[in-house]
């Protein structure tokens, strides 16, 4: 039995494949798009296509960018001696939205996870080491999540970077993404206590 007109069904199916969208939301969005003025739907379709063609990875830091190098890498008012390593662009955005940070970034595009077949060679590690060669960067901040994969990636990078004479620091983000939200508060406090430094 066919429940919806074929093109509508195709739209619902496509929406449902998006992260965080279940069957009910997909149906609601599809019906909304059908009822909205035609130019609204066209605008959305064009926005998706334009973003796909115009946005690619920054050749230096792997942030998403319209230009070959992203605005952060090209901003000479930022401190390029300070480099923060993150797992993905969402983490970069989170740090940027927080507002205080004025250094540069390097996006790994994932974390080391043998179970998922992801080793250092699948991440932008080689490119990171190449960036550190010219001596501009004096401190690398490892800002991967405090999960076992995030910690493994940070430990792996620290071992590679320290011998270069660059300061390596580690920050623990508040909530472990994909970690146990249940434990977050107490664990965050516990880790903060254990990671305390002398003044």
């Amino acid at each position: 039995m066919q429940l919806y007109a074929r093109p509508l069904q195709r739209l619902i199916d496509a929406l449902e494949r998006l992260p965080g969208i279940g069957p009910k939301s997909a149906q609601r969005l599809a019906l909304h798009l059908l009822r909205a003025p035609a130019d609204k739907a066209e605008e959305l379709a064009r926005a998706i296509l334009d973003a796909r063609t115009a946005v690619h990875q920054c050749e230096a830091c792997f942030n998403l960018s319209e230009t070959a190098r992203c605005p952060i890498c090209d901003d000479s008012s930022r401190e390029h001696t300070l480099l923060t390593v993150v797992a993905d662009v969402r983490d970069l955005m989170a740090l940027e939205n927080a507002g205080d940070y004025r250094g540069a970034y390097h996006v790994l595009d994932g974390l080391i996870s043998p179970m998922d077949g992801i080793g250092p060679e699948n991440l932008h590690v080689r490119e990171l080491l190449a960036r550190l060669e010219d001596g501009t960067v004096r401190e690398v901040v490892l800002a991967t999540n405090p999960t076992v994969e995030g910690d493994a990636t940070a430990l792996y990078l620290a071992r590679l970077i320290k011998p270069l004479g660059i300061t390596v620091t580690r920050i623990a983000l508040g909530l472990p993404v994909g970690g146990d939200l249940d434990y977050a508060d107490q664990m965050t406090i516990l880790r903060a206590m254990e990671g305390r430094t002398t003044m």
Partner: protein
Amino acid sequence: MELRRLQLTHYRNYPALDLAVGAGLHVFSGANAQGKTNLLEAVYLTAVGKSPRTSQEGELIAWDAELARVTAEYASARRGAITVEVALGRRGAGGTSAQKRIRVNDTARGQAELAGVAPVVLFLVDDLEIIRGEPARRRAFLDTDLSAMSRTYGWALRQYTRVVEQRNRLLKGMRDGEADPAELEPWNAQLVSFGARVLEVRARFVADLNAVSGETYAGLTASAQAMTITYRCDWGDPEAEETTRDAFTARLDAAVREMAGEELRRGSSLVGPHRDDLTILVDGKDVRQFGSQGEQRTAALALRVSEFSLLQRLFAEPPILLLDDILSELDRTRRAALLAHLAPLAQVILTTTDVDALGLPPHTDVHLYHVADGTVAPLTA
């Protein structure tokens, strides 16, 4: 700690139940398959956040329903009234998995946050396997107990387990020439740090358990026989005795280095708490190998009673005792001795198929109930 009221809606074979209970000894009797164990399971669910019988939580929802709800009202001497509500919604039609929502005093909580909210000790017929079964069964005994007592233990254990899984996968990859040995170091470091956390807590627990178990066993058997429990690691320095986190860190670290070649050959992690075991001695003899059925049964009971004493100390009030049909395997004197020992200590909720065979202790606050086909009727004693 006391259970005051239990309400079930579409839970297992209970369409609806509203049961008021008070202090004392509560005996739920009935024929097989009427819902006695289901009742204890429901109490345990509100206390620990999961079923002791299944991890497929859809099984807890009545077959003809989509949503089950269990509400338990507890009275704590220290913390006053506590209401725990667990709601389970079936995922997909006829599914065996469920979505779970836990509320404590009307505030949403995660399962791990229930640790210590309503301490209970559950005695099961299956406890015999802790004594007789594989090492994994004894590790599960430690891990279940410790996770219910401490949120940090549950967290460390999960991290550790994940590290071992990742590390095993990497070791296999290295053995097959797919991965670079330099990738192992971060997993070694985490195996050592989380492993030492797990070991430290387990060792302390076993020491505490030991401090009470000798006396407990002697008490249960009315003999001078003592039970001792030792935590056993078959890796690393066999002479090592110190049980601080630092000592375990050093021992793990050395063992990981020493075993590197063998681990690579086998493609598996051979060092750490996931390999450990408990040895339980009665009168100096390993009860797993040499104990009679009765001795093994008594050792299992002694473990649970010791657990009760520990929890009582930890939470500064007696936990609730839940006994599922465990008395039938004891002879009449031991049965009477056990009940006489436990009844004055705490609220006791027990199930049996044969109430006359219990040998109920006189002068105690005893309440009898009859369980039939998902209904409970109070009996006059």
